[in-house]
């Protein structure tokens, strides 16, 4: 199972790199290779300043850019998150904001210390993500803090427990610096989905 998954992730990354070719029709945004990735950070190239414009064409372009950026961040993020969760659990809290909250099957875990403790105690995991979707969150809700909603679903097997379907939602927020954008988890909601538990 594991070797298969590793290749699968790499396959994604390959596709991901290839995608950057397709955007030459958009001069405004820079698309250097799909976002540099340090080990435990999700980082994408900065969004160039969007001129405020009311024309529908411009708005459409803006939206598309947001969507693309969101998709890119989401894919990178999901790869890193589940890989870290399975193989480098100790590094997982680094992906969260300081005041981030995790709701895990209804249980609330707040703050980096509690998160570190929680992930430490959680048994080792084997995640298989079968579904991924993302949306840029509307700025009216986020007050201009670039945020992406990421939704994933799949199966997970924790050591010593049976396999479960799970659903997980993340709110990723961007912290932009001149050189790059670092995405961190502001909130995380995880739940087992065992409607069809055999």
């Amino acid at each position, binding site marked *: 199972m594991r070797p298969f998954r590793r290749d699968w992730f790499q396959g994604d990354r390959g596709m991901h790199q290839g995608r950057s070719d397709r955007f030459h029709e958009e001069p405004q945004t820079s698309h250097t290779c799909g976002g540099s990735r340090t080990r435990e950070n999700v980082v994408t190239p900065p969004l160039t300043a969007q001129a405020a414009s009311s024309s529908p064409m411009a708005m459409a372009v803006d939206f598309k850019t947001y969507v693309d950026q969101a998709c890119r961040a989401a894919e990178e993020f999901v790869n890193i998150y589940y890989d870290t969760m399975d193989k480098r659990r100790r590094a997982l809290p680094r992906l969260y904001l300081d005041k981030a909250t995790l709701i895990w099957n209804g249980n609330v875990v707040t703050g980096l210390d509690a998160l570190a403790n929680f992930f430490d105690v959680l048994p080792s995991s084997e995640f298989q993500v079968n579904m991924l979707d993302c949306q840029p969150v509307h700025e009216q809700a986020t007050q201009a803090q670039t945020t992406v909603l990421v939704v994933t679903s799949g199966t997970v097997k924790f050591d*010593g427990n049976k396999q479960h379907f799970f659903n997980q939602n993340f709110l990723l927020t961007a912290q932009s610096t001149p050189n790059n954008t670092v995405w961190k988890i502001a909130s995380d909601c995880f739940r087992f989905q065992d*409607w069809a538990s055999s």
Partner: protein
Amino acid sequence: MAERQQRQKCVLPWTYRNEEYSDGGSLPQGRKKSWSSFRGNFGKRNPRYEHGGYKPQPSHFQEDYRNVRMRDVQADVQTRHAPYTTDHKRRVKLHNEGCIQITVWRNKKFLKGKVGENAQDGTLGSWFKIKVPDGMKYDKTWLMNSIQRHCSVPFTPVDFHYVKNWAQFFVQDASAASALKDISYKICDEENKKIPIFVSTSAVPYSVRDKLEPKEMEQLKLTMTKRYDPSQKALDLQSLRYDPDLVGLDIDIILNRRNCMAATLQIIKKNFPELLSLNLRNNKLHQLDGLSDLIQIAPTVKILNLSRNELKSACELDKMKGLKLEELWLEENPFCGTFPDQSTYISAIKKCFPKLLCLDGQALPPPTTVDIDKPYLTKPCEESYKRCEALKSLVMQFLQEYYFIYDSGNRQGLLGAYHDEACFSLTVLFNPTDQAPSSLFEYFKDNRNMKNLKDPFLRVQLLKHTKRDIVGSLCVLPKTQHDLLSFVVDMWFQTERMLCFSVNGVFKEVDGNSQGSVRAFSRTFIATPASCSGIFIVNDELFVRDITPRKTQSAFSIQVPAPISSSGPNLSQQQQEMVQAFSTESGMSLH
């Protein structure tokens, strides 16, 4: 004879109460406790030796006989330590005609040690015994780490073992010993009780005193290498004492003894650090104090065979708790018979090794509960309780209204629920192993599962952007009937301008091609406050999965509720039940 021995048991001053020190550990018959608690490095006066059952080794016998005489000479010097030496000597002499080589052999070693001590030899210099009362209740690693952390002088603990409930180990360095004395009552355990530490002088610990000579170590290493299977990373040390190589060279590796076990572990540490499987069958192990060092040395061990040994209680296994064992053999140990039935036995072992998959060659039934959930329930935050309640009821109300319209057959009414520039996307899980053509095909054209969909253009296309587009695409989806009682709602993020919540539940399709199919869905809403104390949805993500009909008969239990505007009794009961489900299931974060 028996009663004299009983008397002696009470009087002897030696303080090692460890079973190891009282057992030569080589004869099969288990013996009553009174024998094992008998102190004394005089070796075994255990009558079991009289039963033989041990291969006669003439060379040993000759040598030891010589030593007996030597011991007679030295025993006079030792009288202050051993009030019953004379008796003991006599007894041993009596038995020399039999095959009690072991007793005598041990005496030789013992005296060698004692002599060395008197001679102020550097390596056998002053040793100190450190005792921690009730040490058995602490995890060994935690205890030793805590002591090391608090102690101002670094030290190396030697021969850690338990005596009754006390943890004991040795240190050589006098400064370490006094530093350890200083930290008595300084370390707090989890119940905030201070841990006392007692320090006293002691004789040389056995694993040091009886340390194997280099050529013995070399031979042991060769023998172990022969018994190691690199493809399986398995080391077979069954009946190690009777290994022909070792026997041929007169090397007595009695694993029950501290020195032999320490030597074996040292060789494992150097040569087989990634050991997966260790077989210690038939080695007459009475205790596992020595083996517990394996946890630090080779934490990778997953398969352990301790069958046909002399383990008398499950407490011995507690010492090995740090190993994440998957397979364990324990049969033919005395303590196996102490359980009333198989299932108590299994659950006792599982308490030590929760991840165990196979015991005594039989696969264990998988755990019935998901134990990851239990410890993390947190108390709800009291001060914002009222605010939470208000939000909860707001969300509940919203969902009721939303799904009422959603299930009504005409979803145009949902226009009022969405923000002008809201986003919506839909994903379905396509299971390639489905035999029949998937009944989710009506959802497929809008499926935006990015795991499969790579085309960036499509990814933008399939994200419905304005409320008109959204409601337009919702209207095209099959007619549904949602089971509100199945809803599990998580409110997972809130600010003044944003409320995020997820709904998980089931719904049924009520007409069309897939009539009667039951789906599980997970829907995430991000909403922002609207002017009239309602909320607008700004982001909406729906994930649908087909769940096999036969399993979900029970899941689907309720009819669609009456609309919120009516005030019939049905509705309030419904609402109450939803509150129940909501308050037990949802979590929230507050800013």
